[in-house]
């Protein structure tokens, strides 16, 4: 997987590159819009991380040019302005995701992973992680032979975690996908729900599936 990071702030570009490289991505970096356009013409990328505020040609303009050239590389927009309208504008211009600054690194990595695996999602109606199964038609959850009762919200949370099994899910991403919040409510809602879910699916079972990465997010994984 090869991704291009377009960010004029060198330090930001540097830690984003480090984090993505640590996750096994090959990372190229550009510091302005024109270089980014040139790079995408020369090399096919699996994903583009594009800052909106760039010197010269800005991120949105790069995105429009790209889509005009029928380049469908998935694009994640970054912005320090964080305006709701900007998000809508970006998605309309053909971006696949949008992340306001300051972002959590884990969040960024998780989103880039999701982006580059686009289309590869699990389409099966029964999701499975180890002996935990979730039927997306009947909304029935089971661990081994034991049936687990879930509330509507817990079900959506578990479904989301199981669909992205093995991948780290950041708090903002969970809030966005499970709660449909596009703002940070500043509460520990996600943590409390995760705790409840853990009690239901992990407390009386081995091995433990729901893992916490302190300060960054959660993931479901078979291995401890």
């Amino acid at each position, binding site marked *: 997987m090869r991704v291009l990071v377009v960010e004029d702030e060198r330090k930001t570009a540097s830690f984003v590159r480090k984090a993505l490289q640590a996750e096994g991505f090959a990372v190229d970096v550009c510091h302005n819009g024109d270089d980014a356009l040139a790079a995408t013409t020369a090399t096919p990328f699996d994903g583009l991380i594009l800052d909106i505020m760039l010197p010269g040609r800005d991120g949105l303009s790069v995105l429009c040019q790209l889509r005009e050239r029928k380049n469908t590389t998935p694009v994640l927009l970054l912005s320090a302005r964080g305006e709701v309208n900007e998000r809508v504008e970006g998605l309309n211009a053909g971006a696949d995701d949008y992340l306001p600054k300051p972002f959590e690194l884990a969040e960024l990595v998780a989103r880039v992973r999701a982006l580059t695996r686009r289309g590869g999602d699990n389409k099966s109606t029964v999701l499975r992680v180890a002996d935990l199964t979730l039927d997306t038609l009947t909304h029935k959850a089971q661990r081994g032979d034991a049936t687990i009762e879930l509330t509507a919200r817990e079900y959506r949370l578990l479904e989301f975690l199981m669909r992205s099994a093995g991948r780290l899910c950041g708090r903002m991403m969970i809030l966005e996908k499970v709660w449909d919040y596009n703002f940070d409510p500043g509460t520990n*809602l996600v943590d409390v729900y995760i705790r409840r879910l853990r009690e239901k699916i992990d407390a009386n079972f081995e091995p433990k599936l729901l893992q916490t990465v302190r300060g960054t997010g959660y993931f479901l994984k078979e291995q401890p």
Partner: protein
Amino acid sequence: MTIRTRLTVWYAAIFSVSLLVIGVSMYSELVVEQRAKIARHLGGSVDEDAGTDITQIIFFYGGAAVAVGALGGWWLTRRALAPVMALTAAVEKIHENNLGGKIPYSGNGDELDRLTEVFNAMTTRLNESFHRIREFTLHASHELKTPLTILCGETETELRDESLAPAQHDRAASQLDELRRLARIVDSLTLLAKADAGQIVLATETVRLDELVRDNFADAQILAEPLDIKVKLEKCEEIFVRGDRHRLRQLLLNLADNAVKYNQAQGSVTMSLRRSGEMAEFTIINTGAGISPEILPRVFDRFFRGDPAHNSTTDGCGLGLSIAQWIVSAHGGTIRIASEPSKLTMVTVHLPLSAPETKSA
């Protein structure tokens, strides 16, 4: 007493006095002098009627003249003061959000036009300083975001380093927590600065408020559980409002979060949603320390935190209620807070019902 009444009364009084002077001088000139003359020349009888006639004329016609004068004075002052009233009405409409608007000149080139000019110059200057303060906050919060992004990112990168000693790891994690708190404050500040500058456009649609309240009720229960606080939903009528779904959810969650945070263990939170005239009324009551009357009017102020002793244990940045207030007023509603210290606090939100809702109700 208004200037107009006062001027009219004075006008009438002066008019009466001058009439009196004329009357007295006429009387002395015509009646007394004549009588003396006649007495001197004829030494006979005098027509006593002339004196009575003049008194009658003065009182009868004089009264009418005073009445006409008073009415005329009334009309005159009214005309003279009309530009002042217009000015007052125009000034009354000015508040911090429309300082840019100018008061129209009367065009007479008089003292009042001069006053209008001075007033307009003052509001222009005020508007400029308000604008500059808003711009400053907006720029400051934007400028803070880049270094914050770098700090958060680098601290997170450090945390990923497996060779980090546990003590260093803990320190970095705690730093990251504080950095995120700072990021949230900057976010809230940006939101308020943009709201002040009128830069936020609501994605307005017809929203079923009762569904949002039920959702919020479920979230509040979860938030309250670890503190052993009971959450009740007393009433939840089917209600439609026009509004921005995300902002309304933010408002409800914000209020619910506060109701849980500023509660006591084993306390309770009670929510209800009902129709009240042309408005939807949402109330949320929580038990707990409450808010003392002195600081109650200030709870919507930015960065205002009531009890300083409270701050160490309860997180948040003191911008939550300001944001809630902005969301409510952006939807054309009102938010009120009432409290009985050491007993309960009640927040009431009124939002206008959506148009078809008003008709059917």
